[in-house]
């Protein structure tokens, strides 16, 4: 019988990360799309870092930052009684850093492609920035929103290096699917590794296919109107 716990952990981690990142990235992406501030390229570069950094580098810094003897780690532990290293909670925090650009960039591109006058019309209608974002901007970038959510989810499921650095491989706690496969290969359990890898492959493909089908349909609907 195959132990499905690593998959369950992977998907729990991805779902939580996607949910949290949505609310963090939404105001950030909106601000980046609207601002003319000089600091914008700096923030953009910072946000994009996880794409180019080796996961081990990112994982190392997150590990150092979250360690119990670091100011941040000590603060969180005293406030919530939660350890952030080699725990599931720590994995969620690390994943939020790791997947940040995958949520921010599609949303930002979506917002930037909107007709500026449409946003201004909402302000002229007396609506606040928050209401404009929620009721005008977001509903008009559905394909970008869909891409952001699904890619963030999929990318978090597929993460390996950062998870290994920050979470280790504690069964039922931090041993996600990608780490489980790595360990199976290490001890040469190729049969099991094949099954796990095939499941990951099929799931990832299904997720991506659904995004592309959704966006394809949206485009066709727009063209037909």
């Amino acid at each position: 019988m195959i132990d499905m716990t690593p998959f369950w952990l992977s998907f729990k981690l991805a779902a939580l990360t996607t949910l949290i990142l949505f609310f963090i990235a939404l105001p950030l992406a909106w601000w980046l799309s609207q601002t003319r501030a000089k600091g914008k390229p700096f923030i953009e570069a910072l946000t994009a870092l996880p794409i180019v950094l080796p996961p081990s580098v990112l994982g190392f810094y997150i590990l150092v930052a979250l360690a119990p003897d670091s100011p941040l780690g000590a603060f969180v532990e005293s406030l919530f009684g939660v350890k952030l290293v080699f725990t599931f909670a720590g994995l969620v925090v690390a994943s939020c850093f790791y997947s940040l650009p995958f949520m921010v960039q599609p949303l930002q591109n979506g917002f930037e492609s909107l007709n500026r006058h449409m946003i201004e019309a909402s302000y002229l209608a007396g609506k606040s920035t928050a209401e404009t974002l929620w009721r005008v901007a977001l509903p008009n970038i559905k394909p970008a929103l869909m891409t952001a959510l699904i890619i963030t989810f999929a990318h978090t499921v597929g993460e390996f290096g950062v998870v290994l650095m920050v979470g280790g491989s504690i069964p039922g706690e931090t041993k996600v699917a990608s780490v489980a496969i790595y360990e199976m290969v290490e001890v040469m359990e190729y049969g099991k590794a094949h099954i796990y890898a095939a499941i990951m492959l099929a799931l990832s493909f299904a997720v991506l296919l659904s995004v592309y089908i959704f966006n394809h349909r949206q485009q066709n609907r727009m063209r037909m109107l």
Partner: protein
Amino acid sequence: MITLQLEKVLHGSEGKMHLQVEQCVNRGDFIVIMGESGTGKSTLLRIIAGLERAEGRISVDDVLWQGEGKALPIQQRNVGFVFQDFALFDNMSVKENLLFVNRDTVLAEELLEMMEIEKLSDRNIQMLSGGQKQRVALARALMRRPKLLLMDEPLSSLDPRMRHKLAEKIKELHQRFGMTTLMVSHDLNEARMLADHIWFIENGRVDAYDTDVLERLY
């Protein structure tokens, strides 16, 4: 009474230009703003609406909208604004576009009827023609019963017959709602039909004329 004392540096295709405005508008007047492209006609409307910044003062019926280091937020100015490209909310139906501004269904229905688009009220925005879209945009702009209506070439993308028809509608709305209206236009017929006064923008200066200037200048 609207008093404008404004100054702004524009970066146009022919380099830097100073836009300078010293004008008053009487309540209920219909001003048509004319002038060549890139002279700052749209910018002037956008400054009044609060969409762009400029130096100087704007006061409307003794309320200071801009000046003395302060600027009233766009949301609190309550201007009706009609964009050249309609700028409708694509995710909403015709009626929802109006009700988003103000949940006054009675007013929404009245406006839809006045604009002769009540049959389109549940229609998706993307399914409308240009003329229909501009009617929705006009109706939407009036949903807060603004005292001041600003229109940036609202009819320029429509065919001549539709232009004439909608110009009549604009006149009707202007009178019915007792608004002060500033409209940017290139069209002499529209100006003749609608304007009480003409503003010409040239070399960054805004000069006001009576409507008989149209006969003299063209």
